[in-house]
């Protein structure tokens, strides 16, 4: 029962991946693609938590924290690059 519901949730997260992938290919400029990158990483935090549930290991959650940190860094550096403020 629970696993069925969570499998449906996984499928929905994949649909969200594919929709943002569409915007990645369509997106007129780099800033739009960066938004896509942000949404993809945030969704994959949820996906990692679901994988941790399916494998029943708590230790997988550490990787999700690393993800959150690194996606933040990447978005900030892309924004700085776009406004030519990087040294």
């Amino acid at each position: 029962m629970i696993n069925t519901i969570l499998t449906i949730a996984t499928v929905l997260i994949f649909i969200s991946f594919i929709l943002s992938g569409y915007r990645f290919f369509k997106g007129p400029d780099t800033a739009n693609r960066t938004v896509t990158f942000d949404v993809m990483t945030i969704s994959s935090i949820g996906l990692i938590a679901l994988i941790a549930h399916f494998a029943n290991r708590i230790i997988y959650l550490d990787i999700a924290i690393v993800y959150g940190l690194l996606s933040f860094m990447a978005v900030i550096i892309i924004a700085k690059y776009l406004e030519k403020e990087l040294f």
Partner: protein
Amino acid sequence: MNMTWIALIIGLIMLIMAFAAIYAKKLAVAIIAAGVVSLLASILYLTLAAPDVAMTEAAIGSGLSTIIFFYAINKIRKQSHD
């Protein structure tokens, strides 16, 4: 069984993103696409029961690599404008 489906879809998205990384018009977009490939590779390692490698790939392959790439192309842009 769940893991197999996850790995299949992640692998497909990875290959599409790899082509985007090679054929994107702008270098910044190519680097972002390469970052997405690394990020998804990290999920693939997780399904293969390798959390250590997944963490290394997330921290190094997708984090620090992207940062260093952007610093490098920023330097190149500055040099060509001078």
